[in-house]
């Protein structure tokens, strides 16, 4: 009798858990667009996405997922599918499944670690198009793409340099890889352009995504005297720490990263980096659909989209490059640029955006003279870092405190 009671209870508990878990009417990949009538009208195309993290990370994979949703809405001939949290070692199985079972025409793999798996798949399935994000290996049916933030980090650095009162800026960084080093350097170049005495103190998390660790690192930086914080990792923890300190009366300025995190810190988030993968996916898929891209001509297709292409944007919220709350403070600080003359940092930011959005890219943060941490001249005066140099950068610019662990 007793036993029966327990069985009933447990079944009930499991049932309730399952019930709460299952029937959420979340918009599944099955959108009305791919209903049968549309299919009958025109030949469709299927694009499949492989993500390394959960689409709920509010960072990298989440942003790619936003891109997928965008293109799916954009094209009625497009059908999509995705797999999230795919371990890098398992990508082969997912690639096989997407090509063989799901019949995908275009496959996007969105992590650096998927590179070799994607290369192998491109060889194995010559009729399918592959696009690998953030890698450098290409093939006739395998292209690469990346939206890079370094210019936006530089813009945020300008503001950070203007806002710091202690002259100490903190930076919470995920992993010591060229991408992150490039971001830190670009940010520091911005800081030092406005405030040549300021330093940027870097703390490494060794995780893309660990909110508790990011919080602890941010607090450690504030303890060490930093009053401005920027970061390259995937959680809004740094913004939240900034908001808390600010509410307690110690103004901390923060710059959000990757997703629109402004709502986490209305009184602290000045600006930040935003990405729009949607327009890259739109471009690629449109060209694949119309035959501009096919399985013979992707060898040299390498998207490296920046401000100019509007793949990356400035702001902690879409449509708001700078939090209006900090406008006056930024307008009060002036700098003298050898070419542009004297202007406020606020105006300088928009001027730089204009220059970098120009088709000729009139300005680039990585323009010499640039010295590294040890005082060695790395880029001659007037020399711009090449694409390859940016991709492999493994040294800190002058003004960074801390080291790049090897």
């Amino acid at each position, binding site marked *: 009798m007793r036993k029966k009671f327990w069985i009933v209870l447990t079944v009930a508990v499991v049932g309730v*858990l399952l019930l709460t878990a299952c029937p959420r009417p979340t918009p599944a990949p099955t959108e009305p667009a791919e209903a049968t009538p549309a299919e009958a009208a025109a030949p469709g195309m299927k694009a499949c996405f492989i993500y390394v993290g959960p689409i709920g990370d509010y960072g990298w994979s989440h942003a790619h997922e936003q891109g997928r949703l965008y293109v799916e809405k954009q094209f009625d001939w497009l059908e999509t599918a995705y797999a999230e949290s795919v371990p890098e070692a398992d990508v082969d199985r997912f690639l096989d499944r997407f090509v063989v079972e799901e019949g995908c025409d275009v496959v996007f793999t969105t992590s650096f670690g998927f590179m070799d798996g994607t290369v192998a798949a491109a060889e194995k399935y010559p009729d399918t198009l592959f696009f690998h994000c953030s890698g450098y290996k290409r093939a006739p049916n395998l292209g690469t793409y990346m939206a890079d933030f370094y210019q936006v980090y530089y813009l945020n650095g300008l503001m950070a340099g203007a806002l710091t009162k202690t002259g100490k800026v903190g930076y919470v960084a995920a992993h010591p890889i060229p991408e992150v080093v490039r971001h830190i350097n670009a940010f520091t170049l911005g800081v030092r352009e406005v405030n040549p005495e300021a330093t940027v103190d870097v703390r490494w998390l060794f995780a893309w*995504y660990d909110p*508790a660790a990011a919080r*602890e690192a941010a607090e450690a930086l504030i303890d060490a005297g930093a009053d401005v914080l920027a970061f390259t990792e995937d959680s809004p923890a740094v913004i939240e720490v900034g908001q808390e300190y600010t509410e307690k009366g110690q103004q901390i300025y923060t710059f959000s990263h990757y997703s*629109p995190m402004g709502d986490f810190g209305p009184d602290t988030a000045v600006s930040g980096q935003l990405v729009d993968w949607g327009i890259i996916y739109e471009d690629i898929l449109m060209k694949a659909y119309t035959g501009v891209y096919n399985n013979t001509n992707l060898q040299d297709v390498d998207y490296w989209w920046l401000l100019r292409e509007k793949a990356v944007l400035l702001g902690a919220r879409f449509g708001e490059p700078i939090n209006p709350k900090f406008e006056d403070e930024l307008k009060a600080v002036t700098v003298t640029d050898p070419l542009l003359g004297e202007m406020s940092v606020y105006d300088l930011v928009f001027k730089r955006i204009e220059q970098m959005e120009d088709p000729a890219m009139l300005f680039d943060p990585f323009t010499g003279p640039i010295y590294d941490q040890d005082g060695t001249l790395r880029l001659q005066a007037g020399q711009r870092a090449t694409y390859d140099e940016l991709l492999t950068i493994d040294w800190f610019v002058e003004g960074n405190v801390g080291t790049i662990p090897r």
Partner: protein
Amino acid sequence: MREFLLTVFSLSTLQGAVRAGTPLLLGTLGEVYAERSGVLNLGVEGMMIMGSVTAFGVAYTTGNIWLAILLAALAGGLLALIHAFTSITLRVNQVVSGLAITMLGLGVSGILGKRYIGQPPGVRLGAINIPVLSDLPIIGPLFFRYDPMVYISILLVVVLWFVLYRTRWGLSLRSVGESPATADALGVNVVRVRYLAVFFGGMMAGVGGAYLSVVYAPAWIEGMTAGAGWIVIALTIFAMWDPVRALLGAYLFGGVRVLQYRLQDLGVSPPLLNMLPFIFTILVLWMSAGEAMRKHIGAPAALMQPYVREERG
């Protein structure tokens, strides 16, 4: 060296250690009780994360932080009941069952939490300011500037220690974990005690998870416990199944956590610092691995042994 010591024992490091250690402490207190009853629950990670998502969801929807923590406790407790059913009633392998609970919790929380991603919490529990006391130099920041959950968890340590060693309930609990057959012979309802202990363990794990999502972070992000549940299991052994030692252990682990980022600028290798909590965890598990050692450090004798009345052991 002086700088090193200054950093390690700085006020803000100690403060950080307490806050980082609190979710671990809450989870460990629960697991101490569960294991004292003889049930190893490796589902702590899953129960914690269910607590995190529940608390965040409730706080976000209702704006009531205490209701959020309460329901998080319930969510953790309910998940623990599944473990109780499989390991106590069905007597399956506790390791397997616990691991399944962890996976279930991580998965279900991911689904439930989808809509909360990127949302700021409606409310959050901040540090409380106690008049006079909070403003004292040194003592103030060190002892009187935490959020209420820190004080509640410390209070729980005292209460749980008292219950465990000074009450009839605690005696029943300990006897069930040491020798269920004897306890049964003395009229203790072994199954009921174990169910309650596991349920309580789940509730505490749920509250620990809630602390992460509505107090510490505060945000919902998939997989946000990031291994805290496993550290809890190591801490339970480190604490030798004692609530007071759990407090010391949790703050110590919290300290190791926050120090990672504070020692970086002193030139200590970041990868090494990053490994510290896990090196610590491995050391603790290794120390407690041997049977002799386990007896020596006082593991419940019937830990992981299902109880069947007919089979006397």
